[in-house]
């Protein structure tokens, strides 16, 4: 009983756990770490988690990839293609943000010589 329950639970939730685990770990990194690069790593983990979540929302049990190849035409239900399309977009947006963030980090390092965010607060109040 217990085992099969656990199995069911895992079956139903493992992707959610994985994705939100990533999201929260990423968020945690952003909240507590002082190093800018580390914060950006957190952001990238957070984005990966979000993407994973989006795709798992679109999953259909025992579905196949939404591609009509010549062999497997309409054999099984297909998974929802929409979240996949969204995630494609989200991945590209994520990489855009990360690249910009890292270039800013490099420039910031030129100016300040540190990446410790506690010491980069000339602008405040």
């Amino acid at each position, binding site marked *: 009983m217990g085992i099969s329950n656990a199995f069911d639970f895992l079956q139903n939730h493992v992707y959610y756990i994985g994705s939100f685990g990533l999201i929260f770990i990423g*968020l945690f990194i*952003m*909240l*507590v*770490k*002082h190093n800018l690069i580390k*914060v950006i790593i957190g952001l990238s983990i957070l984005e990966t988690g979000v993407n994973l979540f989006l795709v798992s929302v679109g999953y259909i049990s025992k579905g196949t990839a939404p591609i009509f190849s010549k062999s497997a035409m309409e054999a099984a239900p297909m998974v929802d293609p929409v979240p996949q399309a969204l995630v494609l977009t989200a991945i590209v947006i994520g990489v855009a943000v990360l690249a910009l963030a890292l270039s800013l980090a490099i420039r910031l390092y030129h100016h300040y010589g540190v990446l410790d*965010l*506690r010491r980069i*607060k*000339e*602008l*405040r*109040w």
Partner: protein
Amino acid sequence: MSLELLLIVAFGGALLSYLFGKICPQIRDPFAVISSVALAVMMAFLYGKTMESPFYFGFLGLPLILRTNMLAWFFAMAISILGALSVIFSWDYVKDRERTDFYYLMLLLANASMLGIVFAGDFVSFFVFWEIMSWSTFLLISYNRGRALGAGMKYIIMSIVGSVSMLIGMLSLYAIYGTLHIATLSKLVPSASSGYLLFLFILFGIAFAIKNALMPLHTWLPDAYAESPTSFNGVLSGMLTRMGMYGFLLIIYVIVGAARALNLGPGIFKFNYILAWLGAITIVVSTFIALLQNDAKQLLGWSAIGQGGYMILGIAFGTSLGLAGGIFHTLNHAVYIVLLFMSVGAVQYRTGGQRDLDSLGGLIKRMPVSFIGALLGISGLIGIPLTNGFVSKWLIYKTLILEGHPFLAFAALIGTWGCILYCYKFVHHIFLGQLPEKYKMVARAPFSMQLPMIILSLVILLFGILPGIPLKVINTIGTSFGFQSLNVTTWGIASETGTLNTINIFAAVVAACVIVWLIFKAGPKAVPVAQEDTYAAGAAIPKDRYHYTVDFYNPLYRMISPYFKDFIGGFCIKLAGWTQNVCHGIRQMYTGYIGHYVMYIVLFLALLIFVQLKWSLW
């Protein structure tokens, strides 16, 4: 003669004189004078007319309306005449200053917007003109730089507070009655609940009390008067401050109506009683603070606060006599305070901006016209018979006594007593006593300054001897508020409880003068000596000051100075300091550290989710 044309002339005159100043400065001053005089002349033709016409439909579906009636005409006439005189006075006064174009623009704009206020037939246009008046005045008060900046800030902050509270009041009217047309409102509002009327009175009252410098909202006035250009003081003190009076009349007697307005609140905490007591407190406190001043313009400023108290006392009781007194006092005060400021201005003009009473003195021979002006001005201010102040003060005293308020009457009396002291100090320190060495070569004021002073002096005497001229107009205003008509004669007022007849007084004074003249004539002939030809009982005459204008009322000062300070002004300064500290405290929230900022975002989210999960608030 339409009102639109009038306002176009007023505002157009302001803008055009600015443009002329930029294009060819020579014709700017004449143009400003001509336009303001023309305005006064046009205004005169409006006498006794009652009309109302929308001039603009564009504002959010609300027609903006101009209207005129006796009340509006009375104020407008005073505004335009005093404005014209101030413009004439400015001719020489600001000639050598920089940015005179700007000065003229703002002066005329302030004037024009005041006309707009009194002709406004609905609250939107009232408010719009009110705000234009506020910021143009702010810009003029700050004109002198230096300390004027602080004065300007005080003025504009209090002004904004006032207009904000007026905005709330006016829009609550709009929200409830769906109109802001004054005539319509005056039919609808009197049937509102007492609580709502009180709410209205408080909101509008704050706005008008600030403008009229009723204590405890007077803080802006002394500094603003002291620091603004003296040529503008005429406009500022004469009518601009008294727009508060106009507002009070409007809200109490036009919109709400005497029947409701005078019975609001329980027992002695009636709205108008509180107003009257505030007026009385204003009179006493500000009079004594004025006595302590050594700056001519500060002194006049405090005096103006006190005189504002008289006006409030006059209109607070809602009898036709008191109302006449209050409105008449508004006019009279405007006349003599403008005169006094002009005389100070003339002295300042010739002495290089000196307005410290202790450093002046003995200018009587050097500037006789200014002296006469100042003398007549203080006579009016004190209320010496045959000057205009006498009549209005008489009416106010009489109201207080008839209505059975001896304490208030006593307060008013104390005010007059203090008024005598500071008025004497004022005229003595400037014009009498020893002439300081450096002012020996001081010349007379230029004609452009003398002319308005002479006109105003004549007006003081005219209204003092023939008070019936303005009182007839004022009586019409009173009857339009629904009061019974007074029996106004050219010489004064006749009523069953006592008659004012200036012709008798005039006769008595003339007789006394004749007698005194005869006595002097009979005595030995006076020998005129030079002003500096002074003897000091054998001792060598010191080169520096030796006359007694310094520490004039020394014992009195020592007695009253601990009690009569501008506590409220001090409190406001402190309040500003506290606000600043609070602001500095709050901005510490933006620490500059990204971790905190991200935390704020997560916090916001978590808080919302937590509240909803826990309590299902939304």
